[in-house]
């Protein structure tokens, strides 16, 4: 796609979209939203980047190695928090019972494991969207090469 307006506008709004996505993820325990919605916003911003510039530029920003590390780490953070709860003497995925500090309600750093898990889910969702998008698009390119 070689559209000047699309490129210019998306270059302008991309940072805001990503910042907003990050905001939604980090404030998941305080306001509407959370890991899924925020992760989806971040993922969508990367897809917008790839669509308005081109695929090569997009995959240069996020290589396959990095995206597969991100995918695994998002899920591993989640499962790891559960295992930490067990190590702390509570049941799997316990929060208050495992002694995570709940902090002052309303603060950014509050509610123990919830914030961390939300962050992990955010990473997971964003990287999943990006990976699926790129792998489907790349497949399309390959089949064009074949024919």
């Amino acid at each position, binding site marked *: 796609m070689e559209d000047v307006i699309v490129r210019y506008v998306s270059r302008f709004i991309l940072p805001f979209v990503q910042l907003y996505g990050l905001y939604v993820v980090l404030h998941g325990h305080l306001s*509407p939203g959370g890991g899924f919605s925020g992760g989806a916003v971040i993922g969508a911003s990367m897809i917008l980047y790839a669509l308005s510039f081109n695929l090569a530029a997009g995959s240069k920003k996020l290589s396959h190695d990095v995206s597969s590390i991100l995918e695994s780490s998002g899920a591993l953070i989640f499962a790891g928090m559960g295992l930490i709860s067990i190590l702390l003497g509570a049941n799997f*995925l316990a*929060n208050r019972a495992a002694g995570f500090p709940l902090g002052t309600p309303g603060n950014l750093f*509050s509610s123990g494991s*919830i914030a961390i898990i*939300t962050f992990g*889910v955010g990473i*997971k969702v964003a990287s999943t969207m990006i990976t699926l998008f790129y792998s489907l698009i790349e497949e399309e390119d390959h089949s064009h090469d074949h024919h």
Partner: protein
Amino acid sequence: MRKLLILFFLAVIMVVMVATVVEMPTIGDPANVTNNEVPRRYVEESLKETGALNVIASIITDYRAFDTLGEATVLFVAIAAALSNLKAH
């Protein structure tokens, strides 16, 4: 012929479902059986028990976090299945 059969089949499903909708408890009625001690505790105690203002967040990442782990796993399995399928051919 096939179309007619499908339409008949769907009509039967629809009649059965609509008949059950007629019998279902009214939407939004505070006396419904779903408004029992379960959501009450979520709404009243979640601030004290989880420290999160967003009750939905406290449910999906604390009270029922195992579902959400399952859900992250669904995303993961979708990636694994899709990528393995795309790479295999």
